[in-house]
């Protein structure tokens, strides 16, 4: 038997995880600790430009990511990213800079140095499913999520466009469902796994968000899901924070707790629920978890 | 957006021995598709990779090639059915021989490029050219060309110049 080397990752949390998505950050750290993985935050990281920068100034959005990636070189291990928007931006910048010589040169001028963007960027889903492995996850389950019906919600950024993130099947991914099955939960078949939640229109055009997010909540309910699991703080915000006003507007009643996948995985691996930020969300998930005897 | 073609300090000579049916046509396709690649390659057309004699490769190195590419049809696609299969064995053996006498095989590339693979042609040529550029001139054979048995060696400036102009 060869002794297993401890996997170490550098970590780019992104601004959401330090603010509205704090529980995503907390649960991610707890999860890594539980799995015995190293996770070291890149010192002095800054905004990735998500999500509006590339619509306004592409060079800026690339340069922000290039600089972040360059700084990440200082920390050991592949770069772990939790936020779907950060992940998308970093991967996109990598792709663009590697494939477009002109852009690369412009970025190099902008950041005043070589555009060193080779650091492998990995979403935490990827790390769990591929690097840790489903078998090992299953092995380490302490509290199987039995009877929990989960609508896995991927959102629009995680797998698109196909050539950039290379995370999973662009239109029909299964990585979240695979992980959940390993934990003993019951992912539901539903229609809106990939639809847009309205993302960053949340402040500028809330009407759009209300409509799109409503469709998501509605179809999750139609599929008899107990809750929705997400991998993006923007999605989480729209589905969780706005849920009540969506219900009001549409005369509906959803009461669907929104989990970060890190929360559910960590919970299944035996991390105490008090360490996972369940208290800092709007739709309190604890009644559901209690009902399913998970806490 | 194409990479701008700028002259480098060292422009390697790259020779490509290609079959007319697949790789030559693939290179034509790269042309009609207006793809861009380094202008260092000189293409010698053969009916088939089966026609390509290892001596040609050797001779090309002797005559100043810094890199040699041999390219033909994918296995099974040979216009002549089996020419490329024979070529494959011949070149597998020849590579081993060159390696044994100390020739850096990074200078000798074999590839299958079909008539539909203009992009692969560009990729293969670009990769070889840039690799060879990084390696610098193929000095081994060039040095040999200048060397003499001791009894004949002269080092007059004129002769040196004459040699320089040959190689």
């Amino acid at each position, binding site marked *: 038997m060869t002794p297993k080397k401890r996997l170490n990752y550098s970590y780019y949390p992104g601004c959401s995880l330090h603010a509205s998505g704090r529980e995503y950050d907390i649960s991610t750290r707890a999860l890594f600790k539980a799995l015995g993985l190293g996770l070291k935050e890149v010192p002095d990281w800054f905004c990735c430009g998500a999500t509006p920068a590339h619509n306004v100034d592409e060079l800026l959005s690339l340069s922000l990511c290039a600089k972040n990636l360059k700084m990440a070189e200082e920390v050991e291990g592949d770069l772990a990213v939790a936020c779907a928007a950060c992940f998308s931006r970093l991967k996109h910048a990598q792709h663009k800079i590697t494939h477009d010589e002109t852009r690369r040169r412009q970025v190099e001028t902008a950041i005043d140095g070589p555009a060193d963007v080779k650091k492998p960027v990995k979403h935490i889903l990827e790390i769990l499913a591929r690097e840790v492995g489903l078998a090992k996850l299953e092995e380490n389950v302490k509290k199987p999520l039995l009877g929990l019906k989960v609508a896995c919600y991927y959102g629009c950024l995680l797998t698109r466009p196909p050539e950039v993130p290379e995370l999973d099947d662009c239109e029909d991914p299964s990585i979240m469902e695979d992980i959940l099955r390993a934990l003993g939960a019951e992912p539901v078949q539903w229609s809106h796994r990939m639809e847009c939640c309205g993302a960053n229109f949340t402040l500028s055009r809330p009407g759009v968000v209300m409509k799109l997010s409503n469709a998501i909540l509605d179809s999750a309910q139609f599929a008899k899901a107990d809750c929705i699991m997400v991998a993006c703080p923007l999605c989480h915000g729209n589905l969780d924070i706005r849920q009540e006003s969506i219900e009001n507007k549409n005369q509906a009643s959803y009461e669907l707790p929104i989990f970060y996948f890190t929360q559910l995985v960590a919970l299944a691996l035996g991390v105490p629920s008090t360490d996972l930020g369940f208290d800092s969300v709007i739709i309190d998930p604890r009644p559901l978890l209690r009902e399913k005897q998970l806490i | 957006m194409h990479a701008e073609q700028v002259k480098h300090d060292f422009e390697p000579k790259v020779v490509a021995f290609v079959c007319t049916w697949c790789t030559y046509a693939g290179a034509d396709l790269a042309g009609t598709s207006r793809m861009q690649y380094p202008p260092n390659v000189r293409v010698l057309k053969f*009916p088939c990779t089966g026609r390509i004699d290892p001596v040609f490769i050797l001779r090309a190195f002797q005559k100043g090639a810094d890199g040699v590419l041999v390219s033909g049809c994918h296995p099974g696609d040979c*216009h002549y059915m089996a020419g490329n299969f024979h070529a494959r064995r011949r070149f597998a053996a020849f590579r081993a021989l060159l390696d044994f006498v100390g020739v850096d095989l990074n200078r000798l590339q074999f590839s299958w490029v079909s008539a539909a693979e203009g992009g692969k042609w560009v990729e293969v040529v670009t990769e070889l050219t840039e690799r060879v550029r990084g390696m610098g001139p193929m000095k081994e054979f060039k040095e040999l060309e200048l060397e003499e048995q001791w009894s004949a060696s002269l080092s007059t400036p004129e002769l040196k110049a004459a040699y320089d102009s040959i190689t």
Partner: protein
Amino acid sequence: MSRIGVFVCHCGENISRTVDVEQVAAAAGNIPGVAFSCDYKYMCSDPGQNLLKKAIAEHNLTGVVVAACSPRMHEKTFRKAAGAAGLNPYVCEMANIREHCSWVHENREMATAKASDIVHLMVERVKKGKSLAPITVPVTKKALVIGGGIAGIQAALDIADAGHQVLVVEREPSIGGHMAQLSETFPTLDCSQCIMTPKMVDVANHPNITLYSYSEIEKVEGYIGNFQVTVRKKARSVDESKCTGCGVCIAKCPKKKIPNEFDQGHGMRSAIYVPFPQAVPNTPVIDRENCTMFQSGKCGVCAKVCGPGAVDYQQEDTLTVESIGAIVVATGFKLYSIDRKPEGSMIQGYGEFGYGTIPDIVDGMTFERLASASGPTGGKILRPSDGKEPKQIVFIQCVGSRAREKGISYCSKICCMYTAKHTMLYHHKVHDGQAYVFFMDARTPGKGYDEFWRRAVEEEEAVYIRGMVSRMYQKGDKIIVMGSDTLVGVQVEIEADMVVLATAVQPQEGADLLAQKLGISYDKYNFYSEAHAKLKPVECATAGIYLAGACQGPKDIPDTVSQASAAAAKVMTLFAKDQLERDPVVAKVNEKYCVGCFACKKVCPYGAIEEKEIKDRQGNVVKVIAYVNPGVCGGCGTCQATCPSKTVELDGYTDEQIMAMIETL
């Protein structure tokens, strides 16, 4: 001493934009042995060719290099011109400074230097070139048509009507192909089977046509005028010579619940079956995978009921070798499926449409069968899942086609028209139904085509929505179609009862394998490549092989029939001669030096090398050496590369020519 003429073409600006053609011509003038050099705007034009002819005469040229486009484009043109001026065509060569230089480089200085080098290479090649005389070979006046769809049928009938023997080889148990499956055809809405089946019968009855159905091409050897084709006749388990086509076996077969391929799996057939009632030949075939007799050894009903005793369970595949002079490839197409594709495949499926798991999402061919009077529903539009009549139906165009992200970037050409046809058929059959069409563009060039499309939109009440569908999912017994209407700028959602996808046209399964047997080239999608996109649209680069129909690219019926007739005309042109002149690029043995090791014979892919005895004047055998049969030699040159002493040499690619080129490096 050679007197070579070098002619540098500007190709309008195609070359001169990047290459300093004057400098190239001037540099060529300095090459030893070059007697004349010039540059000209369009060498391939008449004045350009005249310039060449005039220079050959005036400067007494012994060889010519035309620096212009790829020899694959114009080598014949200039060789002909050189020949007209009295020069041997084979001392005329092209230096490819367009595809291999001006089009692929931007730096003028370097491109010019490269062009000069390319010219120099070719000058050396021509200097060492020899005059060659064309070789004549006999022509076997029998054509092979591969594929018995409308393309193959048309080509076969045309060639047979011209008085030549034709062998038609069809993979399926019956000829007819996709056209036999169609309900009605655009733009006239005439019944497909009504116009198709008479032609099928003509094939069956034509005295000059031999039909091998349920057969495949095993091996192809030889060359234009002289192919040896091995055909595998698959075991039909029914003796064609005995069967009367009475159909009793089919009626009595106890195993009847097998999805019928002809009906896209929506109708049922028995284990012994003919694909459809009008099949040609009308001889049943036993589907051994589904036949109880073959699976368990118990049954044998069909054999018992067969009067003539035609059923033969012992029948095996047979191989037949045929001598063929020309080949028409007409293997047709298949439809793209939205199913998940294997890992690493260039082509992707549609996850957003459920990867083919939603039963009421069907493709266009299934709709044809549903709409066909002879189809599984007797011509009623009923959806597969529950047999209900769909009241809201959505047609989606460009599924797979023009979808680079799915791996196919081409337009399938026929979908706009057949979708319009489908909306009409639907409207005619379901009067209270509503058809919606999602489309990117409506492409309707063709006689009467746009009028037809307009009719669908304006008179037959189809709602055309310009935009794509982003997602479809099952909700209850409805299919929710989410799309966008880009003209209005809104998202639309339709609760459909059934969805019909106009999926992309792809080459037939195994097209690449057949191409490898034939030695013809194909593109990355496996469509067969014509020799020239514009000027040789039916010829393959491999002489003696011609293309007809959708195997070369998506085509509708009129285009397919036209191309099939064109291919037939090419075959007839070939058959008009008793002998054929062929390129003299063949190997020759230097009898003085050959020592008869026969390494060449061992490697020759054509079996062109024979043993020849050299005798002295008394008739004693002095030595046995190699001899290349010029009629059989394919000209690959593998023999020469193998011969240690190079006593076998390929004309047109001699060591002397190649070494001279290498010397210029």
